[in-house]
């Protein structure tokens, strides 16, 4: 043992220098799963990164950690950028992190959640914005890869279920950098063509592979489409923004085809139902007419006439009553007039004059004598007084 003895501090210092002088270790990005993540009250974050067989301790100082916006949790896959150095006190090497982000799936998933929230807020997924799927489309526009399994599934559903629907397939890349532009172009193309609805589809895949269906350009093109869009992207468990913004989401390409078209069997059933309803409605109509005809029988005619006569009688009765009332009124009025005349007459009654001392003298024939020429000497005359009368003989007549 001729070696120089070193202190613990010396060896730790030496190893630290070795690490710090290594250009690779000064700037590394390490991918791993988060564990033991602690955001300390001091503002620093402590955690480890691990993969299937190894682990490395990490520290992220406050001045870096305060810029992160993601809510980190154990189990997330992350990328950490920083330098590897030694913590002298414990003799442990660790990663001094200055940037951290969710990696791959985790990152995309966070992005997906964020965009979903944004579009939800903007009303892109609102029910009121969903277009109605036509019941009997004549032609369907299908956007998918002409080489993909999705198209095979859709075709086989078509050929099994219907003979009535035509389909135009607009072949696009369903992943990769050209994908979103092609999908948007296809949606616009079909909106100018004679198809009744659009199926947008691809087979299953990882979130990265399905990402075109989360691209804002695609989401907005679907939202702006005047034709209804049915999405059939991936498997049942895969959800993309396309599924949310589409007018109808089918879990798979096959089921997208199923919901888009009514099968011949279904159409036949509906058709036959319509026919029997047509018959029923016509029968009902004829029955109504029959009933109306029945109502026009002789009996009902007589009844109608009787009613008419009755009504006429009523009219006459009414007229009679009115006439009587009018007559009564007239008579009453005449009576009153008569009374007042009588009163006037009484006023001028000559008998009343007798009371004042006047008298009336009549001859034998009962004629009132108002001239001396009406009597001769010796005639008997009767003079009526107010009370009683006098019979006298004329002793002299003076004419003049």
């Amino acid at each position, binding site marked *: 043992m001729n070696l120089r003895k070193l202190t613990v501090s010396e060896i730790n210092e030496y190893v630290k220098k070795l690490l710090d002088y290594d250009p690779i270790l000064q700037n590394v990005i390490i991918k791993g799963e988060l564990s033991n993540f602690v955001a300390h009250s001091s503002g620093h974050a402590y955690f480890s990164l691990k993969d299937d067989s190894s682990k490395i301790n990490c520290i992220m100082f406050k001045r870096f950690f305060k810029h992160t916006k993601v809510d980190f949790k154990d189990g997330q896959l992350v990328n950490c950028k920083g330098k590897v150095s030694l913590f002298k006190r414990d003799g442990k090497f660790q990663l001094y992190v200055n940037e951290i982000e969710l990696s791959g799936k985790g990152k995309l998933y966070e992005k997906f959640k964020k965009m979903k929230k944004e579009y939800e807020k903007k009303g892109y997924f609102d029910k009121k914005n969903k277009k109605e799927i036509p019941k009997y489309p004549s032609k369907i526009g299908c956007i998918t890869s002409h080489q993909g399994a999705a198209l095979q599934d859709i075709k086989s559903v078509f050929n099994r279920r219907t*003979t009535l629907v035509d389909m135009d*397939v607009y072949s696009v890349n369903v992943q990769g950098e050209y994908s979103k532009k092609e999908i948007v172009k296809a949606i616009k193309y079909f909106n100018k063509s004679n198809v009744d609805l659009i199926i947008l589809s691809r087979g299953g895949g990882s979130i990265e592979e399905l990402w075109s269906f989360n691209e804002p350009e695609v989401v907005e093109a679907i939202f702006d489409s005047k034709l209804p869009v049915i999405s059939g992207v991936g498997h049942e468990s895969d959800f993309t923004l396309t599924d949310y913004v589409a007018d109808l989401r089918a879990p798979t390409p096959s089921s997208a085809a199923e919901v888009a078209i009514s099968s011949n069997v279904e159409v036949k059933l509906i058709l036959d139902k319509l*026919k029997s309803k047509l018959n029923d409605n016509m029968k009902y109509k004829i029955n109504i007419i029959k009933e109306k005809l029945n109502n026009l029988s002789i009996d009902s005619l007589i009844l109608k006439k009787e009613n008419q006569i009755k009504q006429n009688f009523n009219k006459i009765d009414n007229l009679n009553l009115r006439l009587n009332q009018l007559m009564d009124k007239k008579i009453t009025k005449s009576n009153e007039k008569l009374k007042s005349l009588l009163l006037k007459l009484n006023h001028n009654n000559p008998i009343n004059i007798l009371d004042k001392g006047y008298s009336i003298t009549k001859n034998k024939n009962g004629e009132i004598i108002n001239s001396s020429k009406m009597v001769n000497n010796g005639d008997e005359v009767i003079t009526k007084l107010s009370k009683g009368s006098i019979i006298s003989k004329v002793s002299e007549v003076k004419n003049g």
Partner: protein
Amino acid sequence: MAENFSEKMKKLEKIVKSLEDDSIDIDKSMKKFEKGINLYNELNDLLKKAENKIEILNKKEK
């Protein structure tokens, strides 16, 4: 062929519904009924004779 189907189907549905209206007189109803039956027959024929057409538009570009 298939182009006509949905149009005719809609017409038939409309006729069936219009016969429910009591105010339409018997002459008009009979005419509508006849038209409906004709449509039904045509649709049935279409259903039997039609054939799907699947076309891939831009295969060459790929």
